[in-house]
């Protein structure tokens, strides 16, 4: 399962040679200038041609698994768009652009993509690996992008062409606090890894928990992968928490929770989606046992319904795309694959709404086809949306990943679901709605 990647694990500058940096900068400057001169910013050819949806993500390198997950969302969306007659006479196609998960490679890749694809309609990505380096370039070139980075840096984004329908990393803090409140806890301990990714959840968790009337009795930054955490556990237990909020890596979690179990017995643990990922499950189940895992550990993950009209349409199209997507069923419940599918569908509907494939023009219609409103027709597929728009109706697209509600910064956090591990399966036990999160963030 590839629910959440270490999207915050941006490694800018870690391994770049000076030569590569210099080359990247030269290419960036030269190609960006060329792009602006050639395209005047954003126009897609008026003659019927195939509109390219760039799959701008790592397809090689350490995060090579990201790319296929993206293609698995793009291909079924394009299939449905093309089967539905395309957009204003244009067919769509998914084209891969490999960022290699490295800004040094991603910057020239972005510039090359923009410069050499006059029919580029928009993109999926970039990921956290390359977003900080490439979002400004893409925004300047007026390329609508449905990013899959969770970086909190983009929470207050002013980039016009930036759209995010995957939850930002720090939104998890709100979801954790809301679920703990719902479960009736009032005293909690925050046990998070001392890495930047885990710590990005903590400020919003503290803020939300306080706002909900809870008391954070302990807040610990754990040094990762130590051979023992007994002292930290004793300190935590002295504060008498009812629940532990956590995001720590699997090995640390295994050691920490097994020692907690040995010392005084487990207490409920409420973790982020990493808690439901297979490496975490394997490490912690091995350490504390299956029954303790089911009884004490709950994870919060982005809401990814595997039911409903929109998901059913997505699922059918996904399974029909097996010539482009190997083993398509593996992506059927992947929330990221669903949001990539939604991203392409939204771009197509926005083009229809704006009656233009010009990127700068249709970008302004993205909100119009997603936000709710009185008198709007709710649509759950491209075909429904196209038909409604053709009748002159205003639409609200509800995606495979659920309803979309962009804020001023073009972020749509969505809902979260609480799940436990039961007999080798993830069992959903409840939900925190997007509205509850939105109310807490105000």
């Amino acid at each position: 399962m590839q629910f959440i990647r270490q999207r915050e694990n941006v490694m800018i500058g870690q391994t770049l040679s000076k030569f590569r940096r210099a080359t990247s900068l030269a290419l960036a400057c030269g190609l960006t200038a060329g792009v602006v001169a050639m395209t005047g910013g954003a126009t897609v050819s008026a003659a019927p041609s195939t509109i390219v949806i760039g799959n701008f993500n790592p397809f090689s390198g350490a995060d090579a698994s990201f790319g296929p997950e993206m293609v698995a969302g793009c291909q079924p969306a394009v299939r449905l768009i093309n089967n539905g007659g395309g957009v204003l006479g244009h067919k769509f196609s998914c084209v891969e652009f490999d960022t290699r998960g490295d800004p040094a490679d991603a910057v020239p890749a972005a510039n090359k993509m923009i410069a050499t694809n006059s029919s580029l309609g928009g993109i999926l990505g970039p990921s956290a690996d390359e977003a900080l380096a490439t979002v400004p370039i893409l925004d300047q070139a007026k390329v609508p992008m449905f990013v899959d980075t969770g970086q909190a840096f983009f929470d207050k984004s002013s980039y016009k062409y930036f759209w995010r329908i995957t939850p930002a990393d720090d939104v998890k803090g709100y979801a954790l606090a809301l679920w703990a409140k719902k479960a009736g806890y009032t005293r909690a301990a925050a046990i998070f890894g001392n890495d930047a990714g885990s710590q990005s959840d903590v400020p919003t968790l503290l803020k939300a928990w306080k706002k909900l009337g809870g008391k954070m009795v302990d807040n610990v930054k754990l040094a990762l992968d130590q051979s023992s955490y007994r002292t930290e556990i004793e300190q935590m237990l002295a504060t008498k928490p009812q629940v532990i909020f956590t995001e720590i890596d699997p090995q640390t979690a295994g050691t920490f929770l097994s020692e907690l179990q040995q010392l005084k017995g487990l207490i409920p643990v409420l973790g982020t989606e990493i808690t439901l990922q297979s490496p975490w499950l394997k490490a912690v189940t091995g350490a504390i046992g299956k029954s303790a895992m089911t009884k004490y550990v709950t994870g919060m993950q982005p809401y990814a319904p595997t039911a409903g009209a929109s998901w059913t349409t997505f699922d059918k199209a996904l399974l029909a795309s097996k010539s482009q997507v190997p083993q398509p069923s593996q992506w059927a419940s992947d929330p990221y694959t669903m949001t990539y599918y939604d991203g392409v569908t939204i771009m197509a509907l926005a083009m229809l709404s704006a009656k233009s494939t010009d990127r700068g023009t249709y970008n302004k219609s993205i909100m119009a086809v997603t936000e709710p409103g009185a008198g709007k027709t709710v649509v759950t597929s491209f075909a429904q949306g196209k038909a409604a728009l053709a009748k002159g109706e205003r639409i609200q697209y509800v995606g495979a990943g659920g309803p979309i509600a962009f804020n001023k910064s073009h972020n749509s956090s969505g809902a979260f679901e609480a799940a436990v591990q039961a007999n080798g399966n993830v069992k959903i036990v409840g939900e925190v709605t997007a509205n509850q999160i939105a109310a807490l963030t105000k």
Partner: protein
Amino acid sequence: MNLYVLSLGFGLITASILAIASVGFTLQFGVTNILNLAYGDVMTGCAFVAYLVTRSGGSLPEALLAGAGTGALASYGLNRFVYTPFVKRGTRMFGMIIVTISVSLALQNGLQAAFKATFFSLALPRPSSYTFLGMIFTSQQLVIIGLAVVAMLFVHALLSWTKLGRAMRATAADPELARSCGIATDRVIDAAWLLSGALCGTAGVALALNVTSFTSTAGGQFLIPIIAAAVLGGVGHPYGAMIGAVVIGISAELSAAVISPSYKEVIAFLILIVVLLIRPQGIFAEVATQKEVVA
């Protein structure tokens, strides 16, 4: 009970694993003058052997024996077939360090390829817990502490009262002179690798027991504290490594209690730096000075 007192007790478990590992590490360095940076990965390999033994229904003592045996054979083999050819060609210490790093990476990646990048736990029954002076220990942790005590006593007895131990000390002090005095230094070196490997394997299984979930990188991550304990005690000196392990293990736990868990490693290594500033050769000086590991 007071948290600081509890921390002392908790530190003993980490110190015990560190002691077993760092004594093996430093003993081998003292006799052979090879800084074996693949040591942590041999530990991991032994943990995987223990994993396979327990998965096949083996008990903890069987897993420990298998781990120690594998460590001994692997270390002996590494020396005979990888390191010795380089030593015979006159490869200097820096070159040997590069060779051991290469072996470390090969072992780590080989283990990852063989076992996949996931987590493993020894398949042993859940341990019972015992309260002692307000501190709670599991039966497995008591085994780890007991193993450390036995291993330290064994090493002490070997070095103090046996012919082999005396030969090891003589070889560590001056190999040329030892050879001139009729000591079969090649055999002594073989014995040092076997003994060091057995301690390495035992430490690997103890580490896997203690962390409960381990990966192909677990031993490699533990190498820095092992080296720190060895350096603190005076590289090449087994008794120094024992003291170094206790200082590093307990100071890490105490700093978590007194300051913050975030500073756990920071404080332990600051202590190392301060001690080395005052006494660059470590607590026990002679071997480190002879090996020219200090100016």
